[in-house]
Structure formats: structure tokens, C-alpha cells
């Protein structure tokens, strides 16, 4: 391998590979270090990707055989209590034709490998089985390369892009992004459950290649600020459940036991019945939000994707923010490269691009969302049953006048919540979105 490259990228995930593609498109050969045996070997997400943003990196991704699991035509939102719950869903045929691949599911072991292969074909050098353990710096603190755990360890680079994900001991060690506090990450576990294609299509009422996503809140996270999802893949379902890491510590709940209870929930069990578990994984979600985004670039380095806390929890957007931020980082590197000046000031085009994009605008808009959920734990404790009581009451035909039922519902809700609490919840909810 060459001893020096213009650009070294840490991590062959969506952010790193997007940057590598953009750089290679413009004649710069980046080297990408990946600690897994292949790109994707260490990566997980719930499993949705967005065609619009992938299309900005690989416009003809379908023709290039991007490993799509299912095209999403329906999104459901569930609010569950112990025995059942509310379900709200939206489906439109437009997602089958004009807006096909607006959202689709992927398995990251396959997708990331395919994505990195696209970058390789453009000329990027992908080096697997390699952990970047430190950054090289000159006496002025300018980053000048990377230190790896390979025998021929060090590699010089004019600029380094950190795209190594939310769990980044490197970012913490170099001080470029402080270690996240437990309340600023969610810990999620994922189980992939294999089922025949036809069974999935029947259970979710979709035709071949189409699929459904379900986002789930309620007491399934046992009073913790958390969420679960069920996504359809071609021949499997992805089940994820997670909660704020500080809440896990405080509640002393084991993530895998919570997953088991989730699988047994009466709304979930029929969907996975007869399935066979294929894989069990765990990962963090970056929930620090806008106020915990680190300095995005410095002398000789930039940070993109999850590593930079770019994650929109409410809209389950992460991989796409990684892709776009990676592409912006590449553009800024190309710009700075014209003068061979990779100081923070010269790389600032990266921050400017992010600020003017939907990424910063969205993260700013939802900056209070995580604190809202952390503060209003009733969403995960008493309200699921409170609201379910209301629906049960109204749906039970028993000769009681509806006005009386409404009074009963209100009284029941007021047992656990004062009027001020409820008003405060509504007010904070409105402010957080």
C-alpha cells in the first residue's frame, strides 16, 4: 500500500463510503479503513434507507443492483399497552410507482458491502480488518494521518474524515468528540426473524417486493424512554427495541429480556409466529440531538454521520444524514484541496453546507424532542393504559350513555395526571416538534 494518501477515511459505513464515492468521482483516491472483515460486518440499523439521498451518491442504484429488501408502501405507528393498543397507518399506491424507493429496507451487512464496492469501482481503496487506533498530529496539532493496528501501522494523509459511527473510542480519545453521556444515546437490540416471503406478504397485506414499517411506542419499553420497530425484509422481519441508556441503568432492565417480552406482545406475536431467529445484534442510536453536535471540523480532520451525532430520532433518519454529510465533507475537502490548505478555516465549507441543508434545519427543529421524552415518562408508564382505557370504554357497547363514559375516562386519566401535568405535556409536545 502507498505510504500516503490525500484523504484517509475512518469507517466504511454510509458516511465514509459516500465521501469516498464523491472524492473518487473527482479524481481523488481516498483510502477507507474498515475494522470489520468486510464493509457492513459491524454495521446495523433498524433497516430503512432513503432513495432520494442514496440517489445523490449513486443515481442509478437500482440498475447497479443495490440489495433492496422491500420497498416500503405503508408506515404504521402503534401506541401499545399490555394487551393491545392503538394503530395508525398510512398507505398510498404512489409509493409503489412514482415514489418507489422513497423508503426501502436493507440489511446492512449486504448493503454496506455493495455500497463500498461502488466506491472501489470508482477508484477508492478500501482496507478491511483494520482498526484506526489514533490520529497522527504534527507539533501544531494539525492532523497528518492515522495510526492503525496493522503491522505497518501509520499512514500519512493530508486530511482525515472520521466516519466511524456513534460508538467511537477514537473520537473520544482524540477529544474531537467527547464520549457521549448515557442519556445522549439509546441502546437498541435487534433480532432478525426469518419467515417465508409469502407469509410476510400475507401478514402485512403487501404484494411481492413491497413492505411495511411499524414504529412502536408505549409501555413495551417498561417505563423507559424508548421505541421499538418492526420492518419487513424480503424473507425476514427486523425487530428492534431500545431505550435511553441512562434509563436502562436506572431501571435495571436487561435489553434481551425486554426484546423477549416485546416478541410475546399480542400485537407482535402473530406477525412473527413460526419464524426462526437468524441474528441478534446491538447498537447505539445517537440521541444527543442538535445541542450535542461536536465541532464538525478542525485542522486536518472532519467528522460525519453518527460520529457527529447527526441523527433524527423522530423521523428515523440516520443513514441518509450520514450519506449526505459524508458527501458534503468530500465537497469541502475538494474545495480546500485546491489550495492544499486543510486548516479548520479552509474546511469550513463542510459546516456551511450542513447549516444550509435539511440536516441542520431538521435537527434544530427537533432539538427539544429527546428532552421532551426524557421529561414526560408518563408516555411510557401511565398514559398507554390511560388511553387504552378510553378506547375500550368507548368501544364497549353496554347501554351506558356516552357522556357518562367520557366522564369515566376523564376521571380515570385524572387519577394519575393532574390537569397541569396534562397541559404541560401538550405544551412541551408542541414545542418539541
Amino acid at each position, binding site marked *: 500500500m502507498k505510504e500516503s494518501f490525500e484523504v484517509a477515511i475512518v469507517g466504511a459505513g454510509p458516511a465514509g463510503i459516500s465521501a469516498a464515492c464523491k472524492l473518487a468521482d473527482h479524481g481523488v483516491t481516498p483510502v477507507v479503513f474498515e475494522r*470489520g472483515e468486510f464493509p457492513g460486518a459491524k454495521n*446495523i440499523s433498524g433497516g430503512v434507507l432513503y432513495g432520494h439521498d442514496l440517489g445523490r451518491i449513486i443515481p442509478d442504484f437500482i440498475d447497479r443492483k443495490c440489495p433492496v429488501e422491500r420497498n416500503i408502501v405503508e408506515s404504521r405507528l402503534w401506541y401499545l399497552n399490555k394487551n393491545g393498543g392503538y394503530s395508525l397507518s398510512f398507505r398510498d399506491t404512489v409509493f409503489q410507482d412514482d415514489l418507489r424507493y422513497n423508503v426501502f429496507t436493507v440489511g*446492512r451487512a449486504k448493503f454496506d458491502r455493495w455500497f463500498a464496492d461502488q466506491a472501489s469501482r470508482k477508484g477508492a481503496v478500501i482496507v478491511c480488518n483494520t*482498526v484506526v487506533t489514533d490520529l497522527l498530529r504534527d507539533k501544531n496539532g494539525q492532523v497528518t494521518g492515522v495510526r492503525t493496528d496493522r503491522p505497518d501501522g501509520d499512514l500519512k494523509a493530508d486530511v482525515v474524515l472520521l466516519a466511524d459511527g456513534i460508538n467511537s*473510542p477514537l473520537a473520544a480519545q482524540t477529544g474531537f468528540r467527547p464520549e457521549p453521556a448515557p442519556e445522549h444515546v439509546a441502546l437498541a437490540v435487534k433480532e432478525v426473524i426469518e419467515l417465508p416471503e409469502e407469509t410476510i406478504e400475507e401478514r402485512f397485506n403487501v404484494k411481492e417486493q413491497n413492505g411495511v414499517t411499524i414504529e412502536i411506542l408505549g409501555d413495551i419499553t417498561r417505563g423507559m424512554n424508548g421505541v421499538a420497530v418492526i420492518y419487513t425484509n424480503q424473507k425476514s422481519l427486523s425487530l428492534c427495541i431500545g431505550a435511553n441508556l441512562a434509563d436502562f441503568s436506572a431501571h435495571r432492565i*436487561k435489553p*434481551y429480556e425486554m426484546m423477549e417480552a416485546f416478541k410475546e406482545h399480542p400485537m407482535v406475536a402473530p406477525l412473527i409466529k413460526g419464524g426462526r431467529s437468524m*441474528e*441478534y445484534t446491538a447498537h447505539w442510536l445517537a440521541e444527543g440531538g442538535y445541542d450535542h453536535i461536536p465541532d464538525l471540523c478542525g485542522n486536518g480532520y472532519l467528522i460525519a454521520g453518527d460520529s457527529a451525532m447527526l441523527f433524527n430520532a423522530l423521523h428515523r433518519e440516520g443513514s441518509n444524514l450520514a450519506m449526505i454529510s459524508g458527501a458534503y465533507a468530500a465537497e469541502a475537502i475538494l474545495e480546500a484541496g485546491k489550495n492544499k490548505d486543510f486548516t479548520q478555516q479552509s474546511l469550513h465549507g463542510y459546516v456551511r453546507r450542513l447549516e444550509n441543508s435539511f440536516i441542520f434545519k431538521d435537527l434544530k427543529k427537533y432539538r427539544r424532542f429527546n428532552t421532551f421524552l426524557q421529561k414526560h415518562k408518563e408516555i411510557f408508564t401511565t398514559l398507554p393504559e390511560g388511553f387504552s382505557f378510553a378506547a375500550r370504554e368507548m368501544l364497549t357497547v353496554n347501554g351506558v350513555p356516552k357522556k357518562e363514559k367520557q366522564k369515566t375516562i376523564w376521571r380515570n386519566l385524572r387519577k394519575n395526571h393532574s390537569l397541569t401535568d396534562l397541559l404541560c405535556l401538550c405544551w412541551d409536545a408542541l414545542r418539541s416538534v
Partner: protein
Amino acid sequence: MASTIADKLFLDRFNVDETSHLRIIDAKICMEDCREQPCLYICPANVYKLEDDRISVNYEGCLECGSCRIGCPHLNIDWRFPTGGFGIRHKFG
């Protein structure tokens, strides 16, 4: 379907390194100063187990999430990634 944590970990593919990438820095802190011992609960792979006189570390099944590192109230866990190519290898991701 896999129901226990042992069943779940059995589904995964690991290329186990000879040496552990997780190390408790001071075993005394766990037993004498740490009342919460959250590592016993938060770890999604049940890597940490309470023995008579210490907490054992079964790094072989680590899912590499990092939770124990930042969740340890005494920051008593030295955590690095497994050597390149070692550790968990996702089949689906």
C-alpha cells in the same frame, strides 16, 4: 425462536480474538465501591457476570455496542475495539 440470551448469541458469528478487548481496570472498585453494578444489567450480551469475589468478563460474546464503557459509573472499563477482523461478524446487519 431464540428466547434466552445464550440462544440469541448462539445465532451470531464471532471470530474470537485470543486476548480480551474489554478489561476491568480495578476489580476492587466493582466489589467495594460500585453499588449499582449496571454492567450486569445493561450489557445486551450478558458479558459481565457476578462471581463470588469479582465481576467476570466474557468478552467472546461482546456485541461491541460500547454501553458498558460509558454506563459504568466509575468508568472502570478499559474498552477498545477487537483487533481488526476479530469480534462479531454480522450476517444480516
